[in-house]
């Protein structure tokens, strides 16, 4: 019974924890500009993250070491350092966006300028990382993130023409006022938001923090096979809300507050309160995950003791990196950079660096010296994963040119 409850809570956590600042912004902005014509990208992204997260969770459970602990050992220090630099830089951008996102969520209920709240948020993130046990931290914010279900309720309350929504999603086209380049750019943004690298760093390191073994492989599968697709539905609900409420009024999404506006308009105060709790939980949870990921990737590369399962004194350098990363994110955020732009750049640049994250996972998950003959990838998984590697390579090549051609989607 305890095990079933654990799996259930894990799935709920995976659903609620799926959405972060990048998903909120990318899905709402896309829905407002392209309707449901890019919904297929969310589906493609979710399948990709399911395949690779399952793989990385399996590697962690079998080897008792997270994937990036093995990257340097298996692929050498040169590949490891390239991976470290790219991953750390993008993770920093994401952390900055999440910290700003939490501050904005708090400003929406307090009316205090979000820049004044950024230092407070940074301290709060650090305190939670420092003091709260890993499992509780993961569950609390993941389950609170389920408040975002209010976006699905909003869509249902609007009572849209479901046939039209389905038609747009299944027969996508480039809207007349857009170009194929902006369509492709936003597709990459959505793809990057769904397959953000930190999700894999955190998922794989979290598996070790939670002490997963081969007995937990089913929980791993349940989390990714049930939790992530349902989390993807939340993303689609946010997209649909923006399409149904904001697009008819020619509203583009440039602020996080606009993401919640359809809920206020349709469901009212209670709905708005629930949406704001959901946005807070989603961004705060992601801020915790990205700040820990900063420590994880550096500690894994340099071979330091790491994680919350180790006494802080025993993993002092790991905690210093986490603290410095939070401090740096705070300093970047309070310069007044546009948090939505930072978010957009973080997800688009994530897309450019995705092969660096996902290629090593595929290599290690196929290596019997790490996985044993019984737990290496099946042919089916390898076939899908290889197709995704090709997609990731194409996306990586096109990201920067598209960013320049479309002036970052403007």
């Amino acid at each position, binding site marked *: 019974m305890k095990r079933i409850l654990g799996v259930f809570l894990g799935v709920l956590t995976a659903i609620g924890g799926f959405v972060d600042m990048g998903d909120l912004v990318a899905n709402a902005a896309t829905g407002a500009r392209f309707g449901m014509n890019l919904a297929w990208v969310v589906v493609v992204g979710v399948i990709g993250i399911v395949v690779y997260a399952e793989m990385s969770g399996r590697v962690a459970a079998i080897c008792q070491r997270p994937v990036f602990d093995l990257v340097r050992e298996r692929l050498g220090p040169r590949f490891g350092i390239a991976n470290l630099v790219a991953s750390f830089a993008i993770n920093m*951008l994401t952390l900055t966006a999440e910290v700003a996102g939490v501050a904005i969520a708090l*400003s*929406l*209920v*307090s*009316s205090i300028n979000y820049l004044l709240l950024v230092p407070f948020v940074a301290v709060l993130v650090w305190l939670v990382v420092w003091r709260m046990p890993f499992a509780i931290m993961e569950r609390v914010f993941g389950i609170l993130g389920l408040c975002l279900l209010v976006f699905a309720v909003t869509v249902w309350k609007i009572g849209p023409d479901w046939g039209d929504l389905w038609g747009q999603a299944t027969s996508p086209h480039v809207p007349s006022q857009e170009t194929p380049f902006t369509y492709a750019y936003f597709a990459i943004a959505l793809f990057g938001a769904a397959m953000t690298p930190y999700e894999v760093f955190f998922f794989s390191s979290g598996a070790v923090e939670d002490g997963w073994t081969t007995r937990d492989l089913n929980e791993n599968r349940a989390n990714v096979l049930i939790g992530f697709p349902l989390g993807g539905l939340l993303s689609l609900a946010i997209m649909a809300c923006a399409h149904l*409420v*904001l697009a008819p*009024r*020619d*509203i*583009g999404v*440039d*602020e996080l*507050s*606009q993401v*919640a*506006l359809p809920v*206020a*308009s349709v*469901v*009212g*105060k209670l709905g*708005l*309160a629930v949406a*704001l709790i959901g946005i807070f939980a989603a961004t705060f949870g992601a801020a915790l995950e990205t700040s820990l990921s900063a420590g994880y990737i550096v500690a894994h590369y340099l071979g330091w003791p790491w994680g919350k399962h180790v006494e802080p004194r025993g993993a002092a350098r790991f905690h210093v990196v986490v603290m410095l990363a939070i401090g740096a994110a705070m300093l970047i955020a309070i310069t*007044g*950079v*546009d948090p939505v*732009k*930072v978010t957009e*750049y973080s997800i688009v*640049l994530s897309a450019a660096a995705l092969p660096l994250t996902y290629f090593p996972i595929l290599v290690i998950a196929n290596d019997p010296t790490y996985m044993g003959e019984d737990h290496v990838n099946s042919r089916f998984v390898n076939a899908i994963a290889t197709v995704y590697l090709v997609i990731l390579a194409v996306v990586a090549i096109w990201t*920067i040119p598209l*960013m*320049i051609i479309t002036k*970052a989607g*403007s």
Partner: protein
Amino acid sequence: MSRHEGLRRLLVVVSGAVLVIVAAGCVTHPIGAARTYDDYERKATTTAESARSAVATVRLLAEAAGDGNTFGPFAAVVVSEQEDALGGLRGTFASIQPPDDRAVELRDELTPILDDAFTGVGDVRIAVRRGDLEEAARRGDALSAVSAALDAVIEAHP
């Protein structure tokens, strides 16, 4: 130059370019000079589209506030954000040098509408900050004329 050194330089150049793009893009209202009328017209249309979005956001918010569907702090932040955005758009558009007389005419057409939008949104903000959400809804309704004017500019300059 060895192959490795060349590759390293290429990586440095690409990384630098990405950093510059990111830094430039994250600045609010980045906009370049307009050298031709077409260029100026495109910037005017983009400005009008962004202003229309800001005004429509405030109208939707004011409508929700009038129906008792929002909290005061939320409404205040949303309106202030859009007011800031409009202020930025207005200032940035005003700073673009019109390249010829047609561009000056377009400038004279759009600038008063942006002023009206900024003032109208400011009115909604004042009502919201005073906690008078019904007045905010009325002020929001009054913005429909500004929206129509912005629509007209966008349609006339596709």
